[in-house]
């Protein structure tokens, strides 16, 4: 997790152009989000300690090599039969596994459970030393040590029973417990193959008789059940929809939402080559009076024109609708609409799955996505959801299982979606989306950056006035936001329209930006030089530009250095720079 921050691009409005590659880790993360495997299909490993400083790989023969994307391992002699069994937590299904240790050996064991009296009661941190006499009077006595820990490995906690394998040893000479803090206590008279309680300051080990051993559990091979594409997902994100359009079969453009304001609407994406779609449309048609009574509108948008792999006659869709008796709103989905709906889903879900058909979206009367249906939705389900619409997104009903929240997030900020819209070139839609959802957006930490991006987009279109107002907006929220300061200063210094320029303010802005952050020295110095030139301080402008060139070159930004060099010539000739 934590890679879920906002996407950011470096728009080059001014100063030093972005010559560097994108932050590439993000590419990788996006690929994973799109369902690519990443070091997956790797099986668990285990190594057998052979003594003498060598291990052998026994991953397969010991039966541990599951391809589960394993995470946690917790150890415990679950069935009290004298060897360690394992619990595993996995990313793949099954998310838990229990592996019973059935190895038949002639080895012995000792299991101890500790109880602290003056130290912590669980005796976490206690060190237990077991000295065993080797079988048949072998050479040296062996001292085995273990520490009781709470939390080790990764995301895991094992049993508080300390389990010692003893090999062939049949006699325990001594058990010493070093309680947390260092105090040592010896326990005598422990026999192999036993469970004991060792209580601090008690002196004698207490034999503990494990509960009657249950009938052994039946082993079986377990794999994750097959998942399906079909799903009904309640959004719970209270997310406003971006502006969407469609084209009627007669070729007229429509905004979705204009006709349906104030009423819930089901947007249904379907295709002539999609059999389940037809069944769904048939049912929606057959029960249209019930749907009308429930107050829900249906908009069926055909994607026939969009799928480049399935050529479909343009007459197919209207004809099919007629054949199934569909009389509601219908038309063609546009490429922009499907892309925006894809972005919407990518925003809602961290795993990004390309849209399939049929996909339907139930939008509530406030224009927020309430339910997403992958695969056909039954009218019964739809009616039930419409009836509960006001409850659905705000209650536990949005979840598959009961449970309790400590801190429930009421909504997902629309910020990232706005970001994606502008990133994908939907500038008008972004502006519309921002203006309609300002209040929701302004609480997001990254909103100044979004406003600057929109400003950059406007500037690129030649709409400097609007760009200036977005930069100012960003600064209203974060007065010290360097990028806004820099970009605004650039426009104020270099715009061909004199009425938009303000050299003094530009100097003030970019000086403040440089004072606060020296990391973007080249681009900011470039802007500063332009600002000085605008207030006719050409000598200073040239000086600063030279420094910017130096820094650009030393950072490997040759293109940028060249551009600043051209500006430098202007300053040296006593002329300001004008952006074209």
């Amino acid at each position, binding site marked *: 997790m934590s890679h879920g921050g906002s996407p950011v691009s470096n728009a080059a409005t001014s100063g030093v152009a972005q010559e560097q590659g994108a932050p590439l880790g993000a590419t990788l993360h996006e690929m994973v989000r799109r369902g690519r495997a990443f070091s997956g299909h790797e099986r668990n490993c285990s190594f057998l300690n052979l003594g003498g400083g060598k291990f052998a790989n026994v991953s397969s023969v010991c*039966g541990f090599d599951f391809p589960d994307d394993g995470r946690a391992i917790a150890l415990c002699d679950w069935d009290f039969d004298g060897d360690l069994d394992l619990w595993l937590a996995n*990313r793949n299904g099954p998310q838990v596994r229990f592996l019973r240790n059935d190895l038949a050996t002639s080895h012995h064991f000792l299991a101890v459970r500790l109880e602290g009296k003056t130290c912590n009661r669980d005796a976490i941190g206690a060190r237990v030393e077991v000295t065993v006499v080797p079988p048949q009077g072998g050479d040296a006595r062996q001292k085995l040590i273990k520490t009781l820990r709470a939390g080790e490995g990764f995301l895991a906690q094992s049993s508080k029973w300390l389990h010692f394998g003893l090999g062939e040893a049949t006699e325990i000479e001594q058990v010493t417990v070093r309680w947390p803090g260092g105090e040592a206590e010896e326990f005598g008279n422990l026999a192999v193959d036993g469970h004991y309680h060792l209580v601090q300051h008690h002196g004698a080990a207490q034999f503990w008789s494990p509960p009657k051993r249950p009938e052994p559990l039946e082993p079986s091979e377990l794999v994750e059940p097959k998942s399906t594409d079909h799903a009904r997902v309640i959004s719970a994100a209270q997310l406003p929809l971006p502006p969407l359009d469609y084209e009627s079969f007669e070729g007229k453009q429509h905004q979705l939402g204009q006709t349906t304001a104030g009423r819930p609407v089901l947007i249904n994406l379907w295709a002539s080559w999609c059999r389940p779609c037809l069944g769904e449309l048939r049912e929606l048609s057959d029960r249209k009076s019930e749907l009308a009574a429930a107050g829900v509108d249906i908009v069926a948008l055909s994607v026939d024109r969009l799928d480049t792999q399935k050529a479909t006659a343009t007459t197919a869709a209207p004809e099919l609708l007629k054949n199934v008796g569909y009389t509601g709103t219908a038309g063609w989905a546009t490429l922009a609409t499907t892309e925006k709906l894809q972005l919407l889903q990518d925003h809602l879900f961290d795993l990004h799955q390309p849209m399939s058909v049929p996909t339907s979206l139930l939008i509530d009367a406030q224009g927020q996505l309430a339910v997403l249906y992958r695969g056909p939705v039954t009218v019964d389900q739809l009616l039930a959801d419409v009836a509960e619409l006001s409850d659905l997104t705000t209650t536990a009903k949005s979840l598959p299982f009961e449970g309790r929240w400590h801190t429930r997030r009421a909504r997902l900020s629309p910020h990232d979606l706005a970001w994606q819209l502008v990133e994908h070139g939907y500038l008008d839609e972004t502006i519309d989306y921002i203006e309609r959802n300002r209040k929701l957006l302004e609480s997001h930490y990254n909103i100044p950056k979004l406003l600057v991006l929109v400003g950059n987009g406007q500037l690129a279109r030649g709409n400097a006035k609007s760009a200036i107002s977005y930069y100012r907006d960003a600064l209203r929220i974060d007065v010290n936001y360097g990028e806004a300061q820099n970009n605004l200063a650039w426009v104020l210094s270099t715009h061909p329209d004199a009425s938009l320029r303000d050299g003094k303010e530009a100097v003030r802005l970019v000086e403040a930006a440089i004072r606060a952050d020296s990391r973007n020295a080249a681009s900011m110095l470039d802007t500063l030089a332009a600002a000085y030139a605008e207030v006719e301080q050409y000598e200073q402008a040239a000086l600063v530009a030279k420094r910017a060139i130096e820094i650009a070159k030393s950072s490997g930004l040759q293109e940028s250095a060249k551009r600043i060099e051209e500006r430098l010539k202007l300053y040296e000739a006593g002329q300001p720079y004008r952006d074209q």
Partner: protein
Amino acid sequence: MSRRRKSKRSEQTPDRRDSKVAGNSSSQSETGWNWILLVGLLFVAVGVGYWILRDQSNQTAEQIQLESKADAGNRTQSSIKTVSAITQDPLPVLATDIVLKEQELSENQLDPGQDGWETEVVAEEVKHLLTRLAGRLGNHDVEPLTPSEIAEGITVGRLRPQNLAEVYRDGGENGAIAVLRAAESSEGGTTAEGYEALTRAIEELAEPFAEATDVHVHFKVIRVSGSEQVTETTAYFEADAKTPTGSLQQRATWICQWQRSPEGALQLASIDSKDFEEVVERGPWLVDCTKAMMEKNRSFQEQLAYGLNHWLLRLGRVHGIHVFARNGMSLGDVNGDGRDDVYVCQPGGLPNRLFIQQDDGTVLDRSKESGVDWLDHTSSALVVDLDNDGDQDMVAATSAGLLVMENDGSGKFRLRSTLATRDIDTQSFSAADFDNDGDLDLYVCIEFARPGSLHSEAEVAFVYHDANDGAANVLFRNDIEAGGKWEFADVTKEVGLDADNRRHSLACAWEDYDNDGDQDLYVANDYGQNCLYRNDEGKFKNIALEANVVDSASGMSVSWGDYNHDGWMDLYVANMFSSAGNRITRQEQFKSGKDDELKKIYSRFAKGNTLLQNDGQGVFREVSSETGVEMARWAWSSVFADINNDAWDDLLVANGYITTDDTGDL
């Protein structure tokens, strides 16, 4: 439609400080992401986008058109299935221009041949050729190598050494495990020449598999070097199978030389094997009893049986479920009946589950009744007695902070305090009494800083191998008063644990490594160097460097154990092993122009797990490679555990990052 620009998805970064208009902070892009991309892209699949393959709809619009017409005339005998009659068939994917182009873009990025990494292409080829060569072991689906793929006069070493000796036998004559290796003096044995020699060597290797079933053979190519004419490759060979008496596995490192045929195809020119190891096992060992253990529980059948990929498409981000989520588990006896129970942590939107052990050894879900069915994303939990009253309390590390719950003695829990942390990306945590005052304190690892909550003093660029911009881990001192409030104090700073504390930590474990009676702390960091904080009367000092335990790599797990019976606790630290990373970081092209030191650091990153042997004098020696526990793949929990009771601690390693339907992964 014309409005659509080329996708800019690749230019996303997680936070705003990287977003200056003409950003040119070179440290970030050059040192940081380069490596991730290189290795990452090669980890990620090379191949056809799976979503197109998923489109199995062969129905044409015309067919449906005809049916619908017939249908329109006869509504009673519908040939178009109604919704309720439709089975859960795979849905056809909408393949628009945009979807296809983005897919093409990503595939180009993923094709190593296009990036100037020709050796990566060779590695792929070699892997296929070796797999075919070893097909004789039992994988009859692969086509054997043809004589034209073998160079004339090929030099062949013994693939299964002649002088195999048993180096380990478990439990005498009835022994369940035998390990065979070549006698050290003369590994391999003699070499021979020619196609027939190769056939013979393969026959010898396959001999133990004569009666085997369920044979798997796998290669990992870890090095490619050489010139246009002769290429040398190093590959790990792994084969395993079931035998009539148990199971069998072989491991070896194969060193091959290849030449190009006049047509440009690779030809095997020499082959030799080293580090051969064969393990023969009799009877069952670890046996999967999950089904019998869990099947009575609806929460297992409907929730835990499915993996994260299933849930990621059914729960929105708003609930706190993420692709990179990691969720752990804890054992502990919560109801005081002498038997351990198990608590399973879950991503946001799915309730954590507490399973209580029953008389018959199975478990029953009691999450709700116990009050621990939290829906907040929970990375890990601990079951410990925090108030020393004899029952097991619980702490869950969630996105809302550490939830500290008191046990009423019967296994019912009540939330007593919420320990908020500045950053929310909690990972592993561990309890110990660091100040020896008789109660358990909590140290929690947190990986990433919360986006937008950046701390100005740490606005340093992310450096992959030495990051210092992560979240700050926290030590909470237990200040619970008997019968009073359950208070904990953040004492990270006052005990000195704020030093080197921004390194993207994933795991930690306490241990008295210097046998002086107090608890020291090792912290494994994903992007930063690891830390060993020595406890000097309750104050900590990071002595990782002088103790030689920095282990510069992506640390993911910590386990302590005395693997060599010398009375000092040794350390096993998990990292990621990457064969692609091994290959690339050793090439000239990798980080060309960077100094050799840096290259070494990156190369080390991909090498695998680390075993650090405690010499008892305050210094550890790395023995990962010589002991044979280094190559453990993309490792997570990696722990000491004696799984055959022979008194020597073995190692268990949980593995794999993200598996999907995509089969193109390495």
